[in-house]
Structures are given as structure tokens and as C-alpha cells.
């Protein structure tokens, strides 16, 4: 596949309010740079992320979706991130079944203290999605901006 040097992917990040959103804030407080491609949506817990939201993002033209939650055992709601892990695992097998790159979706644990990890993760994910190229298989062309 031809890699377009100017390709700027659209990346949606779902961050749980208690750990990862605070981690994202921390990377800001520490002035740790990561690509502008990443836009964060705040959710109470990573388990609030319905796989439907992820598919919706792809349908609307996102090139990558990353879900960030508290580390296992640290969930503010005790067990929410375990639900997320199971749901994303199931989503992966569905994506595999559909023949869609599973690397466009990622689940990461970022604590409120891991600002550096958040920035590094977003940097890496953006590069990985860039390498994958634009999302064409899931994007609904009817949704494309004219």
C-alpha cells in the first residue's frame, strides 16, 4: 500500500474520568507533546465505552480508536475495566471476522500518574495508525464530508 506522507489520521480516544483523563491532563501539565490527531472524549469509566461507539467512529471516518482505562485492580468502580477488557476482546474477534485491521483499535491502561506513558502511547498509536493508512473498509462513504 502506498503510504501518503501527508496523511493525518483522525484518532478518537476514550478516557476514563478517574485515571486516564487525569493522566492525559498530567501529560499536558508536564508539557509532554503528542500529535494533535488525538481528540479525547471523557467517559466516567472505560466500561461506559460501548463497542457501538467505536464502530460509529470508524463509520464516520475515524482512522483509529483508543480506549484508556485504569490499570486492572485500580478501577474507581472496582471492576469496570475488566468488563472493558472482555468487551474489547470480543470486538477484536468480530473485527477479525469482518477482515478489518484490529490494530486500529487499542485498549491501554493509563493511570493518573502516567502522563509520560499517555503521551508515549498516543505518539506510538498515531504512528501505527499512520502506517496502516486511511480507514477505507469501515468508513461509510455516505458519511464523508463533501
Amino acid at each position, binding site marked *: 500500500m502506498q503510504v501518503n506522507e501527508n496523511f493525518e489520521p483522525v484518532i478518537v480516544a476514550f478516557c476514563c474520568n478517574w485515571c486516564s483523563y487525569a493522566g492525559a491532563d498530567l501529560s*499536558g501539565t508536564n508539557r509532554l507533546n503528542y500529535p494533535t490527531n488525538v*481528540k479525547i472524549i471523557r467517559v466516567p469509566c472505560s466500561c461506559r465505552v460501548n463497542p*457501538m461507539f467505536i464502530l*460509529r467512529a470508524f463509520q*464516520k471516518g*475515524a482512522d483509529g480508536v483508543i480506549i484508556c482505562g485504569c490499570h486492572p485492580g485500580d478501577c*474507581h*468502580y472496582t471492576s*469496570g475495566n475488566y468488563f472493558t477488557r472482555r468487551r474489547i476482546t470480543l470486538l477484536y474477534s468480530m473485527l477479525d471476522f469482518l477482515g478489518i485491521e484490529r490494530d486500529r483499535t487499542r485498549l491501554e491502561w493509563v493511570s493518573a500518574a502516567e502522563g509520560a506513558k499517555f503521551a508515549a502511547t498516543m505518539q506510538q498509536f498515531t504512528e501505527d495508525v499512520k502506517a496502516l493508512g486511511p480507514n477505507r473498509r469501515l468508513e461509510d462513504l455516505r458519511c464523508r464530508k463533501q
Partner: protein
Amino acid sequence: MQRIGVFVCHCGTNIAATVDVKAVAEALGHEPGVVISQEYQYMCSESGQELVKNAIKEQKLTGVVICSCSPRMHENTFRKAAASAGLNPYLVEIANIREQCSWIHKDIATATEKAIILGRTAVAKVHLNTPLTSMESPVVKRALVIGGGIAGIQTALDIAEAGFDVDIVEKNPTIGGKMAQIDKTFPTLDCAACILTPKMVEASQNERITIHSFSEVADVKGFVGNFTVKIKKKARFVDETKCTGCGLCTEKCPMKKVPNEFNMGLDNRSAIYIPFAQAVPKVATIDPNYCMMMKSGKCGVCSKVCSAGAIDYKQQDTFIEQQYGAIVVATGFNPIKLDKYDEFAYNQCPDVVTSLELERLMNAAGPNGGTLLRPSDKSHPHTIVFVQCVGSRCDDEKGKPYCSKICCMYTAKHAMLIREKYPDTEVYVFYIDVRTPGKNFDEFYRRAVEQYNVHYIKGMVGKVTPKSDGKIDVQASDLLAGEQLHINADMVVLAAAIEPDKTARPLATMLTTQMDTNDFFTEAHPKLRPVESATAGIFLSGACQGPKDIPETVAQASAAAAKAIGLLCKNSITCNPCVAHSDELMCNGCSSCEKVCPYGAITYVDKEFRMPDRSTKVRRVASVNPAVCQGCGACTVACPSGAMDLSGFSNSQIMAEVDAICK
């Protein structure tokens, strides 16, 4: 039609240096529904807030978007400002263009572009925001403490001290728990009974404390501030109100061959009994499994000698129901059963005892009146071997994977007490590690070694073999010398692992609190909320949460009391309005949400529905208790029919945000 106001903050130069705030305000002004779009130096300042308030009033805004720092910083500030201007605070959304935009990007063009997208996302969300009101739920000013050991007693005393009524539910005939059985306490070696019994008396005399002894929690309903608890008062066949605790019945009772639980079965008691002299309440209890009157109807001696007429052979279990605002769990621990450890010959040889049994053997109120004698032949032991970590740190089904924490210290205490009282006795302690983290703990252990010459040997005991001459052969390894040892012992003391009380798990189910795989209650946060359970209104005290010594238990008991008092002080609780709710018309009654809810906030109710043909039908639908729901949203995703949604973070709101980002 929505009327939305957008306010972009410069935050001095924090935002304005990398984001063209004017361009952002200009761009967002063209978003649908936006009627006013302004920028200002410091939005969070008094005059900045004034700007927002005036705009709300003048423009009759139905939604506000603030493009500023993280919502974790100033969301509350702006919500309060909106509320004071008459706008529902939940119609305010924050676009985080500082921490997540201006501070991490350097290029003004791209940062401005991103800030516009973030603002647009917030505008898209606020279009779908609905006014939310926090529910107020009243608080019953009474606390329940489950368990009457030192943890429960301390918690109850502290809550009563603050002026609230407390009930203690204790399953045994007396409060006091494990500490009542202990002889001396480390590292000060003061007598446990001397410091515990005054507290027991204090609890019984405090008019705010009601002790339900010989009782169990049968059922728990309700939620934080408003629990309804059913307590089963087991029949003790003695009228508590009449019994004076004189003890005449226990002397006259002809059935005296009942193993005495309080002395760990090392001696016998009568069928009607008071567990120990300082019992609280000091009331006799009949053991129906041994009482001859109860079994064959022939006896009735106790009834005849009781001048108070307190004996009632026909007494039945009774139930009482009571409302509570807070519940403190203090169910404590027990040493594990050692049946599976054949190598230590615990079941074969009476001279192999557990540490708690040794406490009773050495206690002045114990079976030997305080003289340490071998249980088998009542002779004085000359060589005593202590084995540590029996069942602790065992990664198999026989034992427990954790360190029981208290054994190192009480073994040092036992060894020291024995050497002090009987200097002709050789004491060996076999250990894997000696763990003494605590104030004056290591000094205490070193005293046992240096001053009392207790032989600490690194290595485990492999086999304990009772011999025909009454001695016990202890085969062990001395890892430092690299050799196998045989010690000809008179007594072996096993430091058995401790485990949570067996009543803890059914109780956790009733309380919908969480437990770990070892049946210890799980705290809400391992570091920052160590005395609260994840379920609101349920607090944890003492060893039910993990192995603990007495000072730690008391500290946690008081901490749990403080948390409970904090709750009871309030007249009502303001609940987070961002909670789940179910659309009853869409709910198919599958129970998926009920299963994933970590708080037990979802119940199913049968409800009558009007059908299209005007008939009525009863359907089972989910119902969320907003006082219990914490708003995690796990149920919203589990719901297959899309009936469950979360206020403030609804499916449509998040979808709108996704759309706005991808646009």
C-alpha cells in the same frame, strides 16, 4: 431551539500563546445553536464568571460551553456560576483546550484547529444535555456494627461518643471476640483482658449502644443512609432481661462434659454456661445439643435453682427489624483448621497445639489456671518447638497464599513469656522469615533472641512424630548450618494461618460488598479509602479486611467510626445525578445489567403496562436506585436492548461527540 453560549478562556497566555482564541471564538460562533461566542482573559475569575452569568440571563441561554482548562479543575466553578444565574448546572460542558491542547502542542495553526474541534465536540454534546437534579436521600441516624470483637466494640464506642445510636450484633453469647481469649499482648506484654474488659463494660453501659448478643444478621435491604436490617436473635433459652448472671445454674448443671469453646476445647463446661467470668452481657445460655432437659425432658435443675426465674426451655428464635444509616462490618478472623497438615501431627498428638490454644493454656483463667502444662499428661514441658507459617504463604489448596502478619510477633511473645516464667525450658522457633514491621516490634523480637535466648532457626519443620515415651520428635532443617535437625520436644506449637470468619461471605452477599479470593472484604481504594467498602454506607473495621494486630485493628475501627459518623452527621445525602436509568418500555427483563452492576443498584420489579390493544400486561423491568448507582455505565453497555442509559454521558451524547470529532 437551543441557545448556546461559548466562552473561550485565554488563561493568561497559557492558552492564548499557542491557540488563536479569537479564531476559536469566531469559528464556534458559527456552530448551530450558538448565539453568543466570546473570549476573555481569565474565565474562572470573578469577572469571567460574571460574563457567563450575564450572558445566561441576557441571552436566555439553554446551554453553556466553556473552552478552558480541564473539567477536573473548574467544572464545578462554572456549574455553580450557571446555577446562580438560573441555568441547570448540568447544562454546562467544558472543552479542555489547555491540558489537552495548548500545553501539548507548539504549532499555533494545528493547535487552533484542534481547539476548534474540541469546542465543536462540546457544543455537539451540550445540544443533548438535559437538566439534571441531584436527589436527596434522608439518612437514618443509627449505625449497625456487625461483630463484637475489639474492632466492633471500638467502632461502636466511637460512634456512640459522637452522639449516635449504635447496635452491635454478635453471634456468640458474649462480646469480646478473639482478644478476650488472648493472654498477653505484644510488644508491651500487658494483659489482654485488663485492657479489653473495661471497654466491654463501657460498651454495655453506654446508653447509646445496644448489644444484640447471640444474634445474627438475617437480611439487609436498602442503601446508604437507609438500610433495613433484619436481625435474628437466636434462642438462648434464658430470659436476658431476668438473668442476673449469678452463675448458680452453671454450677448445678449436671451435664458438665461439654467441650469449652472459649478454652479451645481444652477443658469442659456445663450445658448451661456463661463463656467467661467477664462476659458481656453476663447472661447464661443453654446449649440445646447437650442440655438433658432439652434432649430427654428429664432434668430441669437450672430452672429449679434460678431464683430469677429466667430459664425458658420453650424460647424461640426472634427477629427484629431496624433502620440504619450506616453499617460497619467487623466480623474478624479465625485460625484455620489444621486437619490437612498431617506432617505436624496436630490431630494425633494432644501436645501439638495451635498458638491460640497455647494462649488459653498460659492464661490464668485457662484450663490449667495459668500454669503451662502438657495437655496429655499435665507435666511441665522442658523443650518447646514453635513452627511458624503453618498454612500461611502456602500456594496450594491446603493453606492460604498470604502472610498472616501477626504470627511472628505472637510467637516471639509466647517464646519470651515461656522463657521468662520457666527458664529451664528450651524454646526453639523455626521460621522462614521473621517479619516485624511495627513500632517496637523488631526490638521485641531481638529481645526474645538476645535477652531470653530463644533459639531462632531458619528453616521449616518437615515432620512431627509423636513417640511412645510421650516425647515428640521434630525433624527440621537448619538452613544456615545446612543440616537436618532432630529435636526431642515435649510440646509443639503451630502458628496457624488466620482466615476471615465463615459468616463473612454470606454477609458480603447480603450487603452487596466485594470480597477478594480469600474472603477478606475489599476496601474501596487500597491506599486512599482503606476503611470504606466500594458500596456506599458500608464500612470495614478490623481483620475482616485483612490480617491485623490489635493496634491496627483499633486504629481501623476508629477510622471506620469516623467515616460512619461523617455519614450520620448529614441529614440527607446529595446523590450524583449522573446515574443510570432504564427505559421501561424497551427493557426486556433479561437481568444482564443486574449482573454487571458492582453496587447492586439495579433491581427488577414487576410492573403493569398498557398494551396497544388496551389490555394490561405485567412485565419484569429493571429499576435503578439512584442513591446506590455510582454512574460507571457498565450496565448501559451490557443492556442488549439499549434500554439502559447514563444521564450526563448518554449514548446519544457520546455518539454526538464521536461525530463531531470525525467530521
